[in-house]
């Protein structure tokens, strides 16, 4: 018998092993849900999967009686719009400030302590301020996402750029590069793969801030819907919505991972060899 550390699953076994926990959880849910139903036909806590499917079908295909929208899709579009604008703005800020702080000692001396302090402000604590300043519309939700993840992106990218070996920076100067050229052709391309990785890590927090802002003040959105139907204990809507959000976040993460490997193959050479 080989040691456990030396047992490596093949590709087929790997897929099976990955699916197993999901199947187990699904089975567990079905069994427990059925048992609760048998004990109490009015149970709302763990609705059967058929009930959830009916509710979701209604939300996805029947126009809302008040607004005339297909609720699931209008919620998804509203939320994703906020998420993408927020992520995009945070990425732009992260890239510009990260490159500047990582490359220019003067900028780093002047701004790094400020960024370090700002990144410690709990974003949720200043949500009321955002609502007061930017109103209850889209802007305050986007700003919450930006405030929540931009400081992390700035610090992460500044560290990545600062970690570029000084030999490369000197070499570029001996080839005649100006500071701007150095930033554009040496630092920026090497920061890009890390930016995408950092964005992947930020997806979780970004959704957290999005749902929180929507829960407090919104007229549409995935988070808004969940907190709305909570009043009716509508687990048949909440659980599928949570699953839908998770699926979206997982797909975004996967897309970013693919994008990074497609666009910057040089950064993943070690991975391919492994």
């Amino acid at each position: 018998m080989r040691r456990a550390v030396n047992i490596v699953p093949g590709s087929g076994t790997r897929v099976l092993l990955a699916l197993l926990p999901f199947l187990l959880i699904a089975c567990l849910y079905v069994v427990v849900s059925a048992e609760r139903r048998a004990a109490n036909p009015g149970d709302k806590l763990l609705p059967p999967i058929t009930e959830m499917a009916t509710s979701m079908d209604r939300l996805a295909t029947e126009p809302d009686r008040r607004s005339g929208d297909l609720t699931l899709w209008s919620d998804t579009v509203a939320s994703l719009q906020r998420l993408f604008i927020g992520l995009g703005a945070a990425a732009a800020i992260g890239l510009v400030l990260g490159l500047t702080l990582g490359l220019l000692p003067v900028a780093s001396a002047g701004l790094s302590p400020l960024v370090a302090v700002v990144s410690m402000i709990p974003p949720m604590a200043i949500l009321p301020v955002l609502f007061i300043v930017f109103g209850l519309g889209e802007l305050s939700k986007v700003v919450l996402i930006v405030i929540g993840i931009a400081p992390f992106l700035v610090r992460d990218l500044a560290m990545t750029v600062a970690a570029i070996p000084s030999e490369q920076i000197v070499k570029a100067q001996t080839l005649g590069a100006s500071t701007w050229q150095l930033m554009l052709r040496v630092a920026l391309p090497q920061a890009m793969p890390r930016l995408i990785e950092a964005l992947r890590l930020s997806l979780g927090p970004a959704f957290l801030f999005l749902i929180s802002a929507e829960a407090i003040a919104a007229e549409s959105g995935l988070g808004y819907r969940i907190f709305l139907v909570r009043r009716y204990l509508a687990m048949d809507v909440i659980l599928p919505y949570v699953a839908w959000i998770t699926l979206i976040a997982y797909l975004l993460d996967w897309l970013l991972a693919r994008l990074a490997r497609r666009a910057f193959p040089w950064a993943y050479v070690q991975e391919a060899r492994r």
Partner: protein
Amino acid sequence: MSEIRVHNVWMEYGDQVVLESISLDIASGAFVSVVGPSGCGKSTFLRMILGQERPTRGIITLDGAALPDEPGPDRGVVFQRYSVFPHLNVLQNVLIAFEFAESSFTAKLFGAKRQAASEKAEALLEAVGLSEHIRKYPSALSGGQQQRLAIAQALAREPKVLLLDEPFGALDPGTRAQMHALIKPLWRDRGMTVIMVTHDLKEAFGLGTRLLAFDRPRIDPQAPERYGARIIYDLDLSRDGPVPVLGFSRPIEASPTSQETKRSMPHA
């Protein structure tokens, strides 16, 4: 022309004296090998010529003008590691030197200009024997090939001075011999001044026309950082006769070593 004059240069970090009272003239077109024990300041000396560090005292001039206190295209460099850009392929790594020079805002060339620069870059890569690998990324190259690329890159802006900081230190002996055979004709054809820091004495004697040995002649056991390194040997290797020891009364028997080295390295 690329004559370097170093006049009474000191390098100190706080209380620690690294180099003291270094004065020398390096003739245009010389190949200077710099040897010495680890931590004796030979790399610091190289970084001062490079402009990466400023001497605490003293003056360094290149062709009579004070050396700019930052790296520039008149001084090329090859480091032991990290000399090439990992995000650019072999051709782009050399091309970028022309792009820095000719496109100040975008640092990118297009169309006919790019074509012309590409041809120059390919010629350089041909000269270092990398023309079969121009589409590869540095991570796909061997250590020797990466250093060949670093050399091609350093030559692109036709520097007056080429600085080599233990360029072949991480290579296996066979590859190292190939690199020696590569660097010597490149130096001879271009008339550059080369300063090479190395730990390999055979390499230092085999390639150089002049050898500088750095060491700390004075050591105070109570304050080991009080005295810095000086040039303790300055050997002219360009002559065929016995190597004269400049500035030192005691001659050393360096000539047999030198000739033996030359014989064992046919291209050197």
